[in-house]
């Protein structure tokens, strides 16, 4: 349902969407049922000549059933939601599958800095590619992100991945994603962080292996140095 509006571009996007759908349909069903009953009662027991109104205190057993039965049924639905939510939460947030690549994501007022590992595939080496408001990743590759905040709370949100993770000053939070689709989409900050919060947008560029290699070759500081060794 949601992928109709925002494409699902990560391996776990469909799991998150499944939860949205599950909650939508369960809550929606109950909403329709209770609204239906409510209006039916209003119409069925509307004001009539010669019929006095009755005060119902709701203490008799067959009156209390109207509360108890739906209550238990709602609880059964809750169990479903909780079960599936825990399964998805475990997969997305608690389980950390081994990484093919690692990127560093730094939030600050009001920009995202992305540190890409460069051709050697390792962070904190001379060929790292540092970009402001531009994240370049390869499709079908499992990434770990190391999320940091320089000043206040931020939240690294990639809608097409269905990923949201708070960034907290003083902590390095590790998470993962794997893109399933090439394209360019939004990254946003999803935690109010000051007056520029609404303008704290970035772009994610999901590239095929060839595109990504070409981008790396063009952007790596080492390959730039090869072109202009005199600079420094």
């Amino acid at each position: 349902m949601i992928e109709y509006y925002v494409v699902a571009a990560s391996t776990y996007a469909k799991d998150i969407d499944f939860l949205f759908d599950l909650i939508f349909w369960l809550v929606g069903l109950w909403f329709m049922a209770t609204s239906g009953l409510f209006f039916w009662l209003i119409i069925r027991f509307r004001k009539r000549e010669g019929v006095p109104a009755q005060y119902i205190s709701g203490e008799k057993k067959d009156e209390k059933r109207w509360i108890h039965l739906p209550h238990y049924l709602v609880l059964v639905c809750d169990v479903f939601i909780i079960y599936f939510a825990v399964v998805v939460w475990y997969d997305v947030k608690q389980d950390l599958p081994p990484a093919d690549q690692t990127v560093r994501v730094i939030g600050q007022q009001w920009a995202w800095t992305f540190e890409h590992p460069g051709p050697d595939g390792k962070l904190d080496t001379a060929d790292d590619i540092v970009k402001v408001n531009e994240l370049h990743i390869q499709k079908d590759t499992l990434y770990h992100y190391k999320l940091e905040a320089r000043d206040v709370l931020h939240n690294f949100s990639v809608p097409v991945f269905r990923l949201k993770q708070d960034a907290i000053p003083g902590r390095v939070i590790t998470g993962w994603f794997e893109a399933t689709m090439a394209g360019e989409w939004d990254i946003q900050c999803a935690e109010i962080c000051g007056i520029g919060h609404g303008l704290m947008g970035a772009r994610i560029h999901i590239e095929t292996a060839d595109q990504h290699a070409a981008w790396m070759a063009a952007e790596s500081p080492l390959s730039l140095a090869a072109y202009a060794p005199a600079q420094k």
Partner: protein
Amino acid sequence: MAAAALLALAAALPPGPARADELERGEALFDLCSQCHGSQGQGSKLALAPAIAGLKQWYAERQLHNFKSGIRGKNPDDVAGLRMHPMSLSLKDDADITAVAAYVASLSASQPASTLEGGDAAKGAALYAVCGACHGPDGNGIQQMNAPRLVHTNDWYLLSALEKYKAGVRGSNPKNANAIMMRGMAAQLADQQAMLDVIAHIETLARR
């Protein structure tokens, strides 16, 4: 006929003070700026926002364009610049940039209080000879040299700007020629003491 003559006359005149409707638009836009730069453009160290009141319109305009295009402020180590970059994106077109720059220029400039210590203005005066070539002996800036004023802004801002230039946090984008030139100039200041000295001298210019 008279109107046509007036129009021709107006066209022939150099660009005069900003139009009233432009200033009005600029004032409305300045509401966002004022959150950090202060309601009178007086600056706030806490927000890392320098005093901008009375900044020349050409300079304010150019810097807003630079921030917007990302040739200024879009460096991962430029904390203040990264705050200003998204703000500039909220100005939707050139007319807005002109309007807000005109409003900033219309605010009355004043010299903010000193916050730095340990600068030797006499030593700074000798160092300033190089700066003065572009920024003017009075520190008021020279448009023909693409050099902004140095007086009427915060001493802590001048220091952070010099440090950023020296470290290449500013002046390393190949598309920003003026900043690259300034980076070369800042490199000539040996250390922080030299920066404090030259800033102390600039403050005496403001009080002259």
